[in-house]
């Protein structure tokens, strides 16, 4: 009851914030890339296009988006002095923190949904006649969503802790670019959260198609790292948010 009110309040703050452009940016770009790709897999009409789009979306944009969403959701509290107002409302600090978390998750859900739609649009525009492999793309988008959780927890922690929008974003960008290279390492890929969206989405697509063409050699390491880093960043971020002094 109370928590849903906090959520509604957070949601209202996104009004006029043009967040919709950020949500749609990556799916739209992926569509363009999907339309022009020449990658073709003989046995599967859709696979080449979808794989290209997944690579574009998950290697760079998805990790960056986690940082952008987190920064966006805290931006006005930092600039307009909103923290002291929000934190003197009769709700616990954890409720505020997790309301922001859930709004980010919701935005990510919108992006992944838009991405699924984008793959269908690209294939349809290219005149593919085989049925759209919805389940496979859906599973890939879902695992990609899960793979973003540790990054979101980390970025929300940084975004609430640091006043500046630029600082965490620059760090995020710098850690995102090596992700493509690190993802190719069977040893280090699963240990590197910024490689997780890429690993998760490609692996889930290939696995759901009955193959194993992803980059993921050690699924166990991948899931262990994902869950522990998610738990760790969430715990540290929320405890810090609750304990810190608000001046």
């Amino acid at each position: 009851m109370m928590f849903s009110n906090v959520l509604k309040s957070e949601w209202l703050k996104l009004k006029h914030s043009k967040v919709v452009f950020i949500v749609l940016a990556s799916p739209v770009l992926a569509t363009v890339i999907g339309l022009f790709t020449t990658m073709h897999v003989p046995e599967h009409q859709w696979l080449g296009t979808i794989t290209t789009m997944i690579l574009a979306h998950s290697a760079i944009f998805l990790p960056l988006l986690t940082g952008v969403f987190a920064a966006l959701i805290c931006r006005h509290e930092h600039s307009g002095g909103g923290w002291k107002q929000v934190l003197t409302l009769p709700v616990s600090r954890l409720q505020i923190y997790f309301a922001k978390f859930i709004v980010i998750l919701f935005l990510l859900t919108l992006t992944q949904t838009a991405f699924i739609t984008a793959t269908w649009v690209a294939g349809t525009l290219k005149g593919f006649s085989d049925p759209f492999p919805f389940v496979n793309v859906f599973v890939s988008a879902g695992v990609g969503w899960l793979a973003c959780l540790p990054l979101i927890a980390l970025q929300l922690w940084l975004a609430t802790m640091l006043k500046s929008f630029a600082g965490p974003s620059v760090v995020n960008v710098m850690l995102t670019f090596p992700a493509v290279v690190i993802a190719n390492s069977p040893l280090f890929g699963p240990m590197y959260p910024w490689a997780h969206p890429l690993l998760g989405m490609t692996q889930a697509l290939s696995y759901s198609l009955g193959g194993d063409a992803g980059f993921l050699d050690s699924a166990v390491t991948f899931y262990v790292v994902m869950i522990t880093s998610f738990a760790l960043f969430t715990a540290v971020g929320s405890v810090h948010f609750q304990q810190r002094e608000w001046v």
Partner: protein
Amino acid sequence: MGNQTYLLETNDLTKTYKGTKVVNGLSLQLEEGEIYGFLGPNGAGKTTTIRMLLGLIKPAKGNVTVFGKDLTKERIAILKQIGSLVESPSYYPHLTGKDNLETLRKILQVPKSRITEVLEMVRLTKMADRKVKEYSLGMKQRLGLAASLLGRPKLLILDEPTNGLDPAGMIEIRELIRQLPAKYGMTVLLSSHLLTEIDQVATKVGIIAKGEMIFQDRIEVLREKASRKLHVQMDDWETGQKVLSSHGIETARHDNWLTMPNQPDGKIAEIVKELVYSGLNIYRVSEEIASLEDIFLNLTKGEETL
């Protein structure tokens, strides 16, 4: 703790920054229905104290009791009945004034009509549907005040609420604050670095300097401390001085003004009569009223806080 229960009470409240006690052993008592003027020069520790009262920062020592509850244990229950404005107003620039209040209303769960009400109280109705980034500083301040009133709080904590307002706005907001206890049963704590700001509204005054409370009592007590003076301007001050000293009143002179300690009404009438009977022309008789400010300055004198 005495036998009296206060609406808000602090005990030995202390805050340390980098080894310096910026708030030191503060005991502050606020009774229901009061307007408490929390006065102190820049850097005295007003905002730091207010942040502790609201649970935004933790005291190094001491405790805060509000509505008879311990702030560390029942923060949320206490905050339910507090409205506040700390330092500068908080706002979302991309939202309208109305939507800014709506983000708070969703959590405070008051009827929508309350937004219209508080906007009216601070006279911001015309700007309600404009984005706050288009607001002037004074308008943002009014929005902050509206936000603090939104939840119909029992206790209102305002840190320099007339910051950024023009003189007319200051008077208007002061008038609004003055009416709050009688009209809505609110109790107000109001900080300022200007005595004149709270002189006309406060019923009780607490003066803080270098983190320590150096005076806390009803404002009348502070006024009594003021040594008022009476100034009389006349043509022949030498005769005037002789006449007055024959009545046992010692005077100081500045140009053709004679200055003496303030007198009761009857005595003043007598003095003027005597001076006129002695053939003097009296030009002006005036009472010095800036002396409350002098007291404040004297109390906080030598406290180089910055």
